[in-house]
């Protein structure tokens, strides 16, 4: 179980040698939150929740004769120097309770939150002389209510604020307790309250799974037309197009509003030179955005889509797989190539900067074509067999490091810039049984 973390240690922050002092400070802070949560919960329970619960469970039914109606006015000074007034309807009723006759003004549930007109509009609900149901407090028969039920917001309020404080404080206390005087291995190995109670009885982390190997779920949910799976594309092109389009629309919308304002001024015989001076560079930027967006759109449309389908997924080192490359579009493609690549990626927070570096350590060309004539009515397709190299690293992803496998399609259309399209794949470790058999032949020692 992973505890929720509202805030706390950001990545890159670390406590120094006085961990215990720091932990003590955090524990005191979260302990104060827990105390505040308990106080709030007590106040809300005693002031709101319990009275409402008593009305619905303890109050006894009776019949009430309406003798008069009125409004209760409540004026409060909040903030100091500023007064606000609220109104609430109230009804004078005569009723019998505990064998005696009582006459008293009814209590309303909830805070007085009506305006005067709203409160007055509710009074005809209790015509004078009519008989209405009511409920009196057996502990104090002079207390009578004419409405029962629960206000959801009362309970929401009663639960939300103290609940948030208690949850915030408790999780902070548990987190502090988990980290108190513990090593990085102990923190990394811990999983939650079970571990807090008894760390030695926790099963090994990651048992029965493949730690560090990314999930393949998102790569196998698209069936192919020829082969089993169609690989999703990981390319910045789509986001670039979307980003440029969004920028062009938003920027030019603002520009249009300003231009209409300037136009109305001109029509009215006024010339706002400052606004016009601003409009010129704004218009230049807006036009540039539109041009870039249209260019990117043409590029995407003219080059055509690239698709890769594969016969199985995830892959394994040494495995051979059928791969289908499909390229749509029109015109001449000077070069088109498919390669299998393994890329290492490392992210390092150096001082105050974050630096991400990538390096391709395997780049195997699979197939290349030259002077390809594309027909818009029928896409180019080529099927081939790809072998994942034996004795290579499997796909591996952690917070700051990654080893990623991918197919890369590089193309150079005529009259358009070259493009690169990336199709991630997941390679699992080589068959465990085979590796175990290989290792059996290695020398062994004896550990007493």
């Amino acid at each position: 179980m992973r505890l929720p973390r509202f805030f706390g240690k950001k990545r890159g922050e670390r406590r120094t040698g006085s961990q215990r002092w720091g932990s003590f400070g955090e524990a005191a802070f979260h302990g104060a939150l827990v105390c505040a949560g308990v106080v709030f919960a007590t106040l809300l329970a005693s002031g709101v929740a319990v009275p409402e619960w008593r009305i619905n469970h303890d109050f006894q039914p009776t019949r009430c004769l309406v003798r008069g109606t009125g409004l209760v006015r409540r004026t409060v000074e909040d903030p100091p120097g500023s007064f606000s007034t609220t109104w609430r309807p109230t009804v004078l009723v005569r009723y019998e309770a505990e064998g005696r006759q009582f006459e008293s003004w009814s209590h309303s549930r909830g805070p007085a939150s009506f305006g005067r007109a709203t409160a007055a509009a509710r009074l005809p609900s209790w015509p004078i002389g009519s008989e209405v149901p009511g409920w009196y407090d057996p502990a104090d028969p002079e207390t009578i209510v004419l409405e029962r039920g629960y206000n959801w917001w009362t309970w929401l309020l009663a639960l939300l604020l103290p609940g948030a404080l208690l949850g915030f404080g408790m999780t902070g206390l548990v987190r502090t307790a988990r980290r108190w005087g513990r090593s990085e291995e102990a923190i990394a190995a811990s999983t939650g309250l079970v571990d807090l109670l008894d760390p030695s009885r926790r099963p090994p982390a990651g048992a029965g799974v493949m730690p560090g190997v990314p999930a393949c779920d998102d790569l196998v949910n698209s069936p192919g037309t020829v082969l089993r799976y169609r690989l999703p594309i990981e390319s910045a092109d789509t986001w670039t197009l979307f980003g440029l389009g969004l920028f062009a629309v938003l920027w030019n919308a603002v520009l249009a509003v300003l231009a209409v304002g300037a136009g109305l001024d001109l029509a009215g015989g006024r010339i706002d030179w400052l606004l016009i001076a601003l409009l010129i560079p704004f218009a230049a930027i807006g036009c540039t955005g539109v041009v870039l967006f249209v260019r990117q759109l043409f590029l995407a449309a003219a080059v055509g889509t690239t698709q890769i389908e594969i016969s199985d997924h995830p892959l394994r080192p040494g495995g051979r797989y059928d791969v289908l490359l499909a390229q749509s579009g029109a015109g001449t493609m000077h070069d088109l190539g498919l390669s299998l690549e393994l890329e290492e990626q490392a992210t390092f927070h150096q001082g105050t900067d974050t630096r991400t570096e990538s390096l391709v350590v395997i780049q195997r060309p699979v197939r290349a074509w030259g002077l390809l004539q594309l027909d818009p009515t029928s896409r180019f397709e080529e099927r081939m067999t790809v072998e994942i190299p034996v004795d290579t690293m499997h796909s591996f992803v952690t917070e700051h490091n990654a080893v990623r496998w991918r197919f890369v399609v590089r193309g150079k259309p005529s009259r358009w810039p070259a493009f690169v399209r990336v199709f991630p794949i997941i390679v699992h470790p080589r068959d465990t049984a085979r590796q175990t058999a290989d290792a059996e032949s290695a020398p062994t020692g004896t550990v007493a």
Partner: protein
Amino acid sequence: MTSESLDRSRPTLRIDAQFDRLDRTYAPGAPLTARYWIAGIGQERVRSIERSVDWYTEGKGEEDLGVHFFERIAPPSPTDAVVEGTVTTTLPASPLSYEGVIVKVRWCLRVRVFFTSGRDFVSEHVFAVGDLPPARPAAPATRIAPPVPVVRGAST
């Protein structure tokens, strides 16, 4: 097995380990047994000992840590000159030890000794899971065949 302590203030403290495979290379999913000895504790009192089988990344990125096996055990008797223990676990299927260029994955047995003074001493004994050869940076992609004119069409 020899080790060199990097602790100048506590030069005698030393932790040695012996693995049940002499080449320290294990197949994924294989059982691992390692025995360790802690010597030179001296007069300082030990609060607890943690032993873990971990993997971590090394290279040009921040270090990421994964803990496969973790155990905290009670302090030894103050009269023990040498403390020894055994760790037994079954390794997972991944990650494999990897000697990449900017990303490396290493497996290790770590033994950490906590003293009542608040200081701790950690010893790391590296072993390998799998037997992958070191990676080499790829040369820029080369064309595998000279471009030949291809007329559109499905060639499947």
